[in-house]
């Protein structure tokens, strides 16, 4: 029994494709407590979406499979070996999810109210249609949609992108899930709408005791919204810590690169942005050594040979890098964000 709300140990998820086995997630461990917000940060292909979808086994057994030895423990239950009935209960009631693209995540042929009420009625068989619709209207009000009584009968195409995303949020919290997973919730939205949606999520975070997992590649959002951040690359976690630790004292070269790639207020106009050379590795090959070795400015021969273990820098801050070894040269983090 874990003392955490969610505990994940050595999660490995693979896909079988016609060209071979793609190891999308290669041994990821983390935990989440009630009321916490964890951000999983990384670029496309790093495995962050696969990781969170695996928490609810959203892939089914055909396309992807969770490798043996993976442990997903939610409130004491073993998710990896759940049967379909238990999984249905978990999805919605235990864990809710907000998807990236509101245009394609809502069913265009069903009203918004129906889609919100769908989950409610599934998890509570005794509730009547009218009561469920009433709940849907309340939820729409909660997520800040004006004139909810009218909107509840409308179809997704009659709402704007920002409103659709709010509907997605309403669906995710409809059954009072303990964990809400937000998979790139604002990537497809305009800047001002993104701010509105994030503010809504922030509100929810403060008013309820729900835990949030935010999956994104946008560093600007995570430092405000999340409590803890973990950086993923090629299916493994390279560094994790509280947001203060990750901001003030990042240790991994990939984290430095990510932080530096984003121009900020202080960066010199038209100055060179710190960029990483090369491209992410082919996930079909088993990777020997650190997956970031090919692209790391500080790469050493040992990095290509063996995967570094995790070093615990504080109770919350860990990093997997050979630079931490006593025999490695002491590297100072490059000046962040192009400060002169």
């Amino acid at each position: 029994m874990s003392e955490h709300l969610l505990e994940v140990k050595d999660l490995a998820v693979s896909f079988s494709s016609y060209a071979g086995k793609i190891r999308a997630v290669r041994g990821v461990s983390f935990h989440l407590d009630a009321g916490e917000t964890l951000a999983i940060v990384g670029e496309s292909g790093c495995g962050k979406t696969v990781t969170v979808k695996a928490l609810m086994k959203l892939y089914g057994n055909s396309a992807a499979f969770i490798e043996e030895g993976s442990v997903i423990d939610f409130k004491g239950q073993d998710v990896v070996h759940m049967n379909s009935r238990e999984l249905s209960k978990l999805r919605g009631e235990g864990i809710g999810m907000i998807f990236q693209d509101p245009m394609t995540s809502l069913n265009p042929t069903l009203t918004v109210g129906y889609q919100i009420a769908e989950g409610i009625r599934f998890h509570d068989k005794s509730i009547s249609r009218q009561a469920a619709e009433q709940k849907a209207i309340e939820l729409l009000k909660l997520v800040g949609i004006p004139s909810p009584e009218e909107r509840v009968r409308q179809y997704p195409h009659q709402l704007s992108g920002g409103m659709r995303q709010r509907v997605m949020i309403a669906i995710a919290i409809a059954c009072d899930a303990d964990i809400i997973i937000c998979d790139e919730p604002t990537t497809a939205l305009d800047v001002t709408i993104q701010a509105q949606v994030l503010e809504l999520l922030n509100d929810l975070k403060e008013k309820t005791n729900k835990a949030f997992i935010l999956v994104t590649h946008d560093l600007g959002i995570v430092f405000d919204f999340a409590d803890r951040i973990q950086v993923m690359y090629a299916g493994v976690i390279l560094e994790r810590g509280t947001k203060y630790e990750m901001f003030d004292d990042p240790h991994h070269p990939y984290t430095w690169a990510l932080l530096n790639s984003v121009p900020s207020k202080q960066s010199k106009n038209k100055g060179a942005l710190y960029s990483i050379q090369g491209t992410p590795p082919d996930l079909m090959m088993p990777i020997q050594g650190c997956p970031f070795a090919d692209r790391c400015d500080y790469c050493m021969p040992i990095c290509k040979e063996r995967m570094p273990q995790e070093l615990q820098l504080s109770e919350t801050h860990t990093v997997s890098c050979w630079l931490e070894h006593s025999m490695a040269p002491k590297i100072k983090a490059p000046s962040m964000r192009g400060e002169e």
Partner: protein
Amino acid sequence: MSPMNSDWVNNTEGLTPEMFKTVGVDTTKDRVLRPHISYWQDAWRRFRKNKLAVFGLILLIFLTVMVIFGPIIAPHPHQDTNIKESYHPIDSEYWFGADKLGRDYFARVWQGGRVSIFIGITGALICAVIGCIYGGVASYFGGRIDTFMMRIVEILSSIPYLLVVILLSMWMDAKGVKTLLLAMTLTGWTGIARLVRSQMITLRNSDYVLAARLLGVRPMKIVTSHLIPNTIGIIIVNITFRVPSLIFSEAFLSFLGLGIQAPDTSWGALCSAAQTVFTFKPYLMFFPAICIALTMLAFTLMGDGLRDALDPRQRK
């Protein structure tokens, strides 16, 4: 968090200082990792992986070989009648038996196959040529001309072609391969015209065509270097699917007596002639019918495979 063994940072066992020298990024490694293949080679590779499609191709090759060489290797020429051998059963002398007039059915079937397949492929090609030109012109001009041309297409495609065939054969007072081809292609090109036109319009709005326009490339050059190569795939697939439907149409029409007439024969004509004695000599219908079915299957399977192989979006 489970307790972590952080002693590894101080564990120097088996490690040398050499392993910790900074080497940085190996810039020669920023290469395209996958082997270099063109679009067509890649399509062929994907086609090959599709077992059903390959089966279709093999089947088609087999049928083509039989259709070409069948009448030649047959023990008796297909047109030689021999009343004495009427309805000769299947044995080593008459591989498919003999028909009512004592003709070698093996030779007859493959001879008929020549006609059926010829009509299928020729008809499909004629439809493709007309359709491409028509659709290309409509999409090139756009606006009113395009609307007008497409209305004609709609009208033509709503006419039942059986009606066209009957009227045409009555009017031309002739039946046979030429009339059949004319009838089938008179309205058969409408489908591909639509396809080509919509594909061209889509392509015209794509970014790379816009880039070519901005570079100052002449419209004709854009058509030949961008629009046509990207449409050929669709056309090939369409032709591949058209052939079996034309073969079936021919069979159907000949079966009704509107198509191939004696002494020429086709699979449909053979089936038609075999109708009356079906209960006594089922093999007379059996062989041509199986051939029709196999040919249609072969083209359809190949068409499916080609469509998947040539679709650029499925590229991994």
